[in-house]
């Protein structure tokens, strides 16, 4: 208990805040007398460096090394004593120990008592020896992984001992697009087109309304034969120029159709003046 290797002296943070005379390059600055050695030592509080350990298992592994035996032969009883002594010391120094350190302490105290007492034939669960063996196994396994990590890191590593090509060449990617269309697509497309009319949503048959589609169809067919300027009224289908309602509908639809064809650049529209007859002709190509 007197010589505990895992208790490392760490300078008190408060003491560190003051200029350290050992490293201060100018200890003889006016007004700053060198600190007496005794005072200095008092400020260096002995602290248990728990933060240096990665948990109780790490601490146990470090402790087990002080037994200077192969980990296979480590005395778990002795280890339990060492650990409990560590925890006591930390408590005496009023060091806050994380909960898992205390859980481990409790478990080791329990294990120690089980190891010291004669085995209870009534007791259920693993024997104290099994538990001790498992703890030894855990320590050995952790130690083995630590050594494996060190060996791994000591290998000839890429970028440190082994090197990749310094000037890799770029591989040009040529992108080719293969357009996919099968005969089936073609036939489906055609079938879709030629049967489209049959799949138009159902509409009331409005006998006295000429649709723009119908007018478009008609004007498109006739415009090729109309050499010069022709009146719009001449394009109305037969039977649509008598009844006023029908004529109005036909005229509106035909006019809309000529506007559409004019937009497409297929014909030209002219009107001499307001309310004068509208004339159209095929656009000269």
């Amino acid at each position: 208990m007197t010589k505990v290797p895992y208790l490392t002296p760490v300078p008190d943070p408060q003491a560190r805040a003051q200029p350290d005379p050992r490293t201060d390059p100018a200890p003889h600055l006016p007004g700053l007398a060198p600190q007496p050695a005794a005072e200095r030592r008092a400020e260096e509080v002995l602290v248990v460096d728990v933060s240096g350990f990665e948990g109780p298992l790490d601490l146990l592994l470090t402790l087990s090394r002080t037994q200077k035996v192969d980990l296979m032969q480590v005395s778990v009883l002795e280890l339990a004593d060492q650990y409990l002594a560590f925890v006591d010391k930390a408590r005496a120094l009023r060091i806050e120990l994380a909960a898992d350190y205390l859980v481990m302490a409790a478990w080791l105290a329990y294990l120690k008592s089980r190891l010291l007492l004669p085995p209870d034939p009534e007791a259920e669960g693993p024997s104290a020896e099994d538990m001790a063996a498992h703890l030894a196994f855990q320590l050995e396994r952790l130690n083995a992984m630590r050594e494996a990590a060190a060996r791994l890191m000591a290998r000839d590593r890429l970028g440190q001992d082994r090197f990749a090509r310094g000037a890799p060449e770029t591989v040009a990617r040529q992108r080719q697009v293969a357009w996919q269309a099968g005969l089936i697509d073609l036939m489906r497309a055609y079938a879709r087109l030629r049967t489209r009319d049959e799949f138009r949503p159902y509409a009331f048959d409005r006998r006295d309304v000429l649709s723009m589609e119908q007018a478009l169809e008609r004007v498109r067919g006739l415009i090729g034969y109309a050499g010069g300027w022709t009146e719009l009224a001449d394009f109305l289908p037969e039977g649509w120029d008598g009844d006023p309602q029908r004529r109005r509908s036909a005229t509106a639809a035909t006019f809309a159709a000529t506007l559409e064809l004019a937009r497409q650049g297929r014909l030209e529209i002219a009107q001499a003046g307001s309310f004068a007859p509208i004339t159209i002709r095929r656009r000269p190509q």
Partner: protein
Amino acid sequence: MSRDDPAPDPQRFPPPPPAEQERMVEAILFAAAEPMSAREIAARLPAGCDAAEALRALRARYEGRGVQLARAGDAWAFRTAADLGFLMQESVVESRRLSRAATETLAIIAYHQPVTRAEIEEIRGVAVSRGTLDQLIELGWVRIGRRRQTPGRPVTFVVTEVFLDHFGLESARDLPGLAELRAAGLLDSRPPGEGLAPGLFDGETDEETGGQAEDLFESE
């Protein structure tokens, strides 16, 4: 040179044998990001090495290999053998489906050739964009045929041998008609509730379709 003093120890050892020097130069040039001159290489080698000799040996060793030790001015670097440059290209074939517009246009040309643009538009009911026809021509599936001897002498479009080859057809006349398409079940993938009246499909030609339009027209 200040470079000479800090490492006097290598001088005490004899230089490595030539084969080893060659290995060293090989490794240095392989890892180098830039071409290196013989002097730069020598600076990295143990004292007493003959970089020029090692480079000569190395160059001979890579003679005829897939990679060559090339010299550019004063500097040396490994380069892919010129005849293998084609391996540095990776061709990625991306297959894309033809757009609906292109497929429909192609179908119309195949079924109605020779066909004018206006006729295509009439059948499709929408204007055909320039790009669509261009794409089909670029693919080699469509070419421009004779001009139609009608006012305006519009150009016509026809399908090509490449097209027939691609679609496995002997001639465009082998394309199945609507009745056959229906018989093959190709017309059945229709939205529900839009049942077909079989009689309507037998009219395959333009005229007959036009006739139907006329019927609609004059039935009142």
